[in-house]
């Protein structure tokens, strides 16, 4: 039997002591389309970076394990090594130069050249001075485009081209490499319209038929089912299953992707008087947040609940809170407690009792060089005029004593580990910075609180503390909370309902104890087979 195109075995990789890959094995045969699926953070990107010899791997101490191509162990120390070995990649975000033509992009870094006077005189030193053979660049590109069945003009510049075409230029570039034997497709259909995606899948099949091995990374399980021959499921840096497509089902893959034991839920009971009253009614919300676009979200948030918003990175879950608070351009119809809510004005939102703890705590959430006490009190001073002296008016002084007292209370309540209320927040750890952000939001006494990624970059102990505080303020003050997180496990721990966002819309809303498979399907954009 022919030796496999690619064999990865026992790949281990850690970044700064955090293991991200723990013994990954992967095999792809010639002419096979092999799918690689997993949640964000499962280790797919790291695995691909290893396969491409990206500098980020070697700058962080390299990796353990072996890479074999065509039955031969290879060392991939740079992207050009990978290129020499015939590994190509079609990137999710296009790796094309907008100012170059299709042909220049297809041949980028591998331009055919002709000798000229200077390169001849200088001999080997003058290698870089050889003229470009533009004719051959065009011809080769034309051939590559023909091979994948595209009628695109090879002399057209990339700038202004539809994204679907750019994708094909990338493919043409990989196909043009004479020794191409493995092409990685990194979520190639994520940016494509349905018809374009279908065209792409057909092209992928024809490439496989030409004997090239394809590694297909996708979140869209239906596409995986349609074209892949085998699938490897990654979870937390480990391979949880490698399946033949004949024996796999969408449900099975979805369950494997998520599959974690449900965390214990021991939450304090709610007080009486729980209602189904709508606190926030969102209709047709669109937010232009780069990389997290929201494209028409309808959502009701009930008074007194903790609503989770889940979804994979880039699907728009972060855009919802950022848009409602007016941090990015936003459109839609929103009612707060039945009254119209003006979109796009952050100050107005804060005055109406809506607070936000941003996912970007260092840029948006904190004034890093200010003290803990001013960070906690600052927004309340500005928005509500709290902590101000009696004189009033624009010249009112901040009542330092009151600010100090409040900060000391908060430091105790949130267990902020610091030297005291005057310490600059820059010197706090990520977890303690996050606690300061929460303390500041709580100081506003919000009726509705948006919290995004509160546990990102936070150590385990502080994580629990942060979640506990959210539950406490929800139960004691009755604050309605919308919690956006990439960690499904923590949402399932504290939320009453969890909305899953896919491609800028709400794909479905599940109970926290719904089965893994249902979450997996919604994450992948499938609605069939989900009960609610």
């Amino acid at each position: 039997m022919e030796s496999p195109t690619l064999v990865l075995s026992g790949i281990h990789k850690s970044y700064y002591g955090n293991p991200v890959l723990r013994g990954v094995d992967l095999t792809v045969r010639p002419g096979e389309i092999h799918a690689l699926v997993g949640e964000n953070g499962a280790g797919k990107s790291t695995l691909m970076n290893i396969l491409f010899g990206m500098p980020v791997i070697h700058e962080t101490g390299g990796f353990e394990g072996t890479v074999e191509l065509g039955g031969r162990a290879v060392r991939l120390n740079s992207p050009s090594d990978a290129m020499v070995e015939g590994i190509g990649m079609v990137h999710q975000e296009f790796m094309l130069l907008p100012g170059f033509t299709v042909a220049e992009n297809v041949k980028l870094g591998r331009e055919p050249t002709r000798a000229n006077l200077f390169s001849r005189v200088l001999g080997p030193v003058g290698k870089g001075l050889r003229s470009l053979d533009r004719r051959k660049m065009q011809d080769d590109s034309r051939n590559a485009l023909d091979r994948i069945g595209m009628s695109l003009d090879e002399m057209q510049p990339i700038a202004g081209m539809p994204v679907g075409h750019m994708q094909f230029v990338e493919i043409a570039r990989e196909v043009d490499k004479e020794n191409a034997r493995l092409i990685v497709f990194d979520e190639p259909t994520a940016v494509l319209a349905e018809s374009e995606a279908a065209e792409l899948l057909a092209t992928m099949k024809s490439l496989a038929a030409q004997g090239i091995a394809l590694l297909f990374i996708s979140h869209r399980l239906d596409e995986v089912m349609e074209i892949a021959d085998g699938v490897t499921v990654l979870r937390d840096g480990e391979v949880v299953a490698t399946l033949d497509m004949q024996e796999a089902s969408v449900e099975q893959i979805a369950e494997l992707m998520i599959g974690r034991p449900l965390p214990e839920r021991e939450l304090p009971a709610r007080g009486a008087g729980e209602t189904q009253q709508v606190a926030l009614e969102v209709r047709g919300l669109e937010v232009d947040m780069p990389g997290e676009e929201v494209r028409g979200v309808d959502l009701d948030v009930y008074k007194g609940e903790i609503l989770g918003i889940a979804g994979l990175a880039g699907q728009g879950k972060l855009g919802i809170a950022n848009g409602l608070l007016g941090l990015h351009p936003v459109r839609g119809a929103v009612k707060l407690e039945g009254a119209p809510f003006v979109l796009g004005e952050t100050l107005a939102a804060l005055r109406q009792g809506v607070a936000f703890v941003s996912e970007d705590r260092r840029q948006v959430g904190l004034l890093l060089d200010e003290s803990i006490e001013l960070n906690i009190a600052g927004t309340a001073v500005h928005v509500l005029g709290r902590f101000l002296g009696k004189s009033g008016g624009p010249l009112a002084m901040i009542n330092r004593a009151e600010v100090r007292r409040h900060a000391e209370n908060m430091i105790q309540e949130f267990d902020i580990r610091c030297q005291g209320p005057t310490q600059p927040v820059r010197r706090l750890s990520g977890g303690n910075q996050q606690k300061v952000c929460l303390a500041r939001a709580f100081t506003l006494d919000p009726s509705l609180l948006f919290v995004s990624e509160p546990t990102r970059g936070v150590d385990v102990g502080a994580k629990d503390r942060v979640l506990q505080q959210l539950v406490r303020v929800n139960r004691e003050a009755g604050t309605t909370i919308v919690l956006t997180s990439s960690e499904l496990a923590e949402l399932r721990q504290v939320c009453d309902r969890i909305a899953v966002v896919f491609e800028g819309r709400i794909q479905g809303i599940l109970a926290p104890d719904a089965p893994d498979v249902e979450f997996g399907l919604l994450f992948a954009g499938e609605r069939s087979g989900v009960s609610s």
Partner: protein
Amino acid sequence: MGKLRQLALQNVVPILFTVLCVSGIIAARADISLPILANDIVTRLSRNLFLVLSLIIPVVAGMGLNFGIIVGAMCGQIGLIVVENQGASGLGAFFAAMGVSIPFSLIFGWLTGLLLNRAKGREMITGMILAFFANGIYQAVFLLMAGPVIPLHNQRILLDGGIGLAITIDLIGTGGQLDRLLRPSIPFMGLPLFIPVATFIFIALLCVALRGYLRTKSGQELRAVGQDMHVAEISGINVDRTRMRAILISTVLGGLGQIIWLSNIGTMNTFQSHEQVGPYAIAALLVGGATVAHATIWHAILGTLLFHTLFQVSPIAGQILLGSAQIGEYFREFVAYAVIGVTLALHAWRTRRS
């Protein structure tokens, strides 16, 4: 109509400067002799264009406007100092100065490149500060060490005590050599218009070389790195080496350009000449319509022409309109820095909008 508007918007800077120049000439028409003005402009074009052209390669490589060109200018001056010290004279001395400057340009250009490769995305401010720093070293070397440590012996270029270089050095050996080589005149409105043909041929050679270089494999890599370092990197292009190449070329050309510039003037302000060239050359390039991310030979030529026309006209226009030539002088300085500031702001604004 929409197209015309777009074209006007894209070329707003050169259009504005053309208007300024023309209205300046009209305002000062009584006091201006067009043939004299033409002679001045031609001379200044031949003097400055090489320097302005030396800025193009780093822009193409995505490193912005090379404020570090001052380092190259210093190397050019080192070449002149060495040759003047020997007391050599003639065209050979002129080219010898160029020859001496190149190894210095390569060494200091390499150091500049090392620094700028560690400051990706902040090349302009880094280059500017680097120039200040280099100026300090330059002063230390030529004020304190010239004479006792560095064997410069020609009393003509040293201060009276024998330590340190004179504040101004007459370029007796190297001055005007290239211009003198071939400088025919043609009659223009009754007066002769002198054209330094040899200098222009030299500049033309550089233009051809730049054009040719950008069409080679190495030039293609430069353009790729200039558009997107990450994409270039994963296409197997050595980004750091390409950027280093761009800075080396620019520094060497800057050194040669400074020699042409000073040789044309005929004297060197030992501790000041190099400081002016950066901002003035950059302003000239920008006046021609270049931006931080896009510059061509035509931008350099048009910009140098307009910038120096304005330089010539503004003191006279100031004298006539406001009764004081000083205001016109002030206007020059103001214009040079304003052009740089406004273009940087325009660039930032356009980038953010797209």
